[in-house]
């Protein structure tokens, strides 16, 4: 029960900030895909920068564990391409479709229905995928610091500098 309330409160806070950042909208998501408006990229990268530093600090203090998803080249590449094509048509991603509905953009409802169907279809074909695509290029739970053999505190600043350079570029170009 407690964990469900944590989920709800965390979601409310995140949904609140997503709406304040104006990133839930079709026009913003398509704007990024059309390289016209980088609002969602600014939001996402800002979240990543703060979370990356915070999570690694807490990890070093022994307070939390990382949750690393396995790298599976076949599944990641094919799945990523499919996700991108579908996202470009829908204009919302799974989390933002719920948020878009919350601010009254009810075309997200068609998206939620479609996602339920997509999930059901995936469950049906999962046994076939498990023995094919999901075995192609399985590299396990790897991270950049691990494959480069350096401390994560070498990678984190590089990532921060890269993101800040990108922000500077976006502002300069009026995106």
């Amino acid at each position, binding site marked *: 029960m407690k964990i469900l309330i944590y989920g709800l409160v965390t979601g409310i806070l995140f949904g609140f900030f997503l709406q304040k950042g104006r990133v839930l909208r079709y026009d913003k998501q398509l704007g990024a895909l059309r390289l016209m408006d980088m609002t969602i990229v600014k939001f996402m990268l800002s979240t990543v920068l703060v979370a990356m530093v915070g999570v690694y600090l807490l990890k070093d203090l022994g307070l939390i564990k990382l949750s690393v998803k396995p790298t599976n080249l076949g599944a990641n590449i094919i799945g990523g391409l499919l996700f991108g094509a579908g996202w470009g048509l829908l204009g919302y991603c799974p989390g933002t479709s719920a948020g878009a509905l919350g601010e009254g953009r009810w075309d997200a409802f068609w998206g939620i229905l479609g996602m*339920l169907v997509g999930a059901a279809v995936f469950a049906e074909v999962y046994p076939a995928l498990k023995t094919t695509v999901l075995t192609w290029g399985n590299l396990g739970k790897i991270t950049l610091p691990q494959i480069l053999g350096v401390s994560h505190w070498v990678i984190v600043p590089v990532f921060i500098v890269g993101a800040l350079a990108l922000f500077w570029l976006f502002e300069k170009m009026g995106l």
Partner: protein
Amino acid sequence: MIHRADDGWSPYLAGALSGLVLVLSVLIAGKYFGASTSFVRSAGMIEELLAPERVSQLAYFKSKTPKIEWQWMFVFGIFLGSLISASTSASFRWQALPDMWQDRFGRSISKRAIVAFLGAAVAMFGARLAGG
């Protein structure tokens, strides 16, 4: 530049605050953010009403049990949080067609419904395949 009332907050600020929420979530609840698994669980819960035998046959629903857990509440919370933010800042708008869509594809709601539905199904399949 003309200042519009509907500009919201800086995406850098709202994004950074979201990052802080994520860090606190990991610290307090041990939970990282995600959304797409909840659509699998919801699809399973709906299928359980229609064809419970089928759900028990499918291996994928063994690992993604059709039930309400942390992430499902998180996704529901995103809906509520957005609703609260939008309705307290006069940016809630009941809208069937996004502006950019309407400019390009016209006023047909069914056209938008079909494209959104199909795009969503493909996107969710891809997300599940890619693992997140």
